[in-house]
């Protein structure tokens, strides 16, 4: 794992029309506590795509990306990361994972800089001191999410939206070429949403691969090249993003997707890992603008 920082900026570039497959799943089934959550997912995401996975609570969208990363085992079917099953995947530096929320753990404080700096771990060797490249990457990541001024503060002092930006900065710091974000906009204030959209725009410009789970796209909508809508663990829609750039200034995702796509939460279908933010379903209600 001795890649120079420059090697990372290179988005997978191969002969035109033959972009490598970043994520693939064939007939993927997942059961959590005996309950089927994914029921036969077939999916191929090529490098350079910007894909949003949409769907209601309990539709399996978070489980889908977790299964693609190998965090949740498949009960049948297969998944691949850049052509390799997650269990045998070695190039983890390529992946920048943004979990749903910052884990507080046992309450030992950590500064914003420490958490963002930990995103370099896949690129650092044991017994190596923090290098100038590490410091520079962390500074760039903090700058990208607008938190340079808070670098010395404990993450616990930050608002939910700011914490989400810390998680994104942590992924950015590792300089991966592929980003996987689990509900980056859930429960995030308007300012943080704008920061997220601006960061995402930069990533798209750089040709990075982005796979994100969202309940609502908000200002990110124009950047999405493809949407995958899940319902009850199956792919309901796979193709053009709902609405499309410029069509729906309010960015509400339910437009262009059949209402049955499950943009409104089904109370009886709460997932095993409930999304604390989503239960009210407020942001998805027609007319909600964020």
């Amino acid at each position, binding site marked *: 794992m001795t890649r120079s920082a420059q090697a990372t900026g290179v988005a997978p570039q191969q002969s035109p029309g033959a972009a490598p497959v970043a994520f693939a799943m064939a007939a993927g089934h997942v059961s959590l506590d005996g309950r089927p959550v994914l029921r036969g997912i077939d999916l191929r995401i090529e490098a350079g795509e910007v894909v949003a996975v949409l769907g209601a609570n309990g539709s399996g969208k978070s489980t889908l990306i977790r299964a693609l990363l190998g965090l949740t085992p498949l009960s049948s079917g297969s998944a691949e990361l850049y052509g390799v099953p997650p269990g045998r995947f070695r190039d983890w530096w390529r992946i920048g994972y943004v979990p749903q929320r910052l884990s507080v753990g046992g309450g*030992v404080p950590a*500064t914003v800089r420490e958490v963002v700096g930990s995103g370099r771990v896949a690129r650092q060797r044991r017994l190596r001191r923090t290098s100038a490249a590490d410091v520079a990457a962390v500074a760039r990541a903090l700058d990208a999410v607008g938190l340079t001024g808070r670098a*010395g503060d404990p993450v616990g002092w930050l608002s939910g939206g700011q914490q989400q930006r810390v998680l994104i900065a942590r992924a950015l710091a590792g300089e991966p070429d592929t980003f996987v974000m689990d509900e980056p906009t859930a429960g995030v204030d308007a300012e943080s949403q704008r920061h997220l959209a601006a960061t995402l725009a930069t990533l798209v410009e750089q040709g990075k691969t982005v796979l994100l789970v969202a309940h609502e796209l908000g200002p990110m909508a124009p950047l999405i090249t493809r949407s995958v809508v899940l319902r009850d663990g199956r792919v309901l829609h796979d193709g053009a993003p709902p609405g499309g750039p410029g069509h729906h200034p309010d960015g509400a995702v339910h437009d262009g997707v059949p209402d049955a796509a499950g943009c409104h939460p089904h109370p009886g279908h709460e997932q095993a890992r409930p999304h604390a933010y989503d239960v009210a379903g407020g942001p998805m209600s027609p007319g909600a603008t964020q």
Partner: protein
Amino acid sequence: MIEMFEYDFMWRALIAALLVGLAAPAVGTFIVQRRLALLGDGIGHVALTGVALGFLTGTAPVLTAVLVAVLGAVAIELVRARGRTTGDVALALLFYGGIAGGVLLIGLAPGGSNSTLTSYLFGSISSVTSQDVWVIAVLAAFVLGVVVIFGRELFVLCQDEEVAKVNGLPVRFLSLLIAVTAALTVVIAMRVVGLLLVSALMVVPVATSQQVTRGFVTTMLLAMVLGVVATVGGLTSAFYASVAPGAAIVLLALLGFVLALGVGKFVRRGRTQECSR
């Protein structure tokens, strides 16, 4: 003040206290962040079985304690990783098994009785031999080495295990490493404060430190300073006041915590505390 340096046993005790004061809070910071604050207690109870096993088999109790404590720590980690039994129930089972096993085995040992175990339960730092000091020094060096070499990875692991996995870190190995390191720390601290109070040295300095610090590394370093102040200070006051050293050390650490609570309130005052839901 000079008087205590005239005794060889006090020199040995001071060295042991210093090493334990450094090692226990260093591991403790990761353990607390991992929500395993009671892990040290669980391992401590299991180690008692190891001590009794040493008496029964005529082996050095420290060695059998290391062996059994490491096995216990690995068992706790495996149960935790399976996730079927919650961590606290798994720990509780070990508490009972460890104490019962220790008492049962010591009764079988020739000439052994529960009072044999007392010095291990509550510590007997003044009876530390020079061989003990060497064992403690080697184990402490190992513990601190683990923190230095794997600290960066352990920080990610203790922060969020899934993020550690997606960063390609050897999650299972690191989890076992932290459990084994905790087990060794327990055995080191056993002679100083006793198995029943071991965990206090892993947890209390960290809890004290995090009242006033902002970052993980500063929390750990301050906890190590506080740990040394507690062990060396407690030992010294125990020498002059003729009280039990283990208890004096732990009470001194707790006193520090109470003081830090007040200081922490003062430090935090005026800060805009934004809380996310």
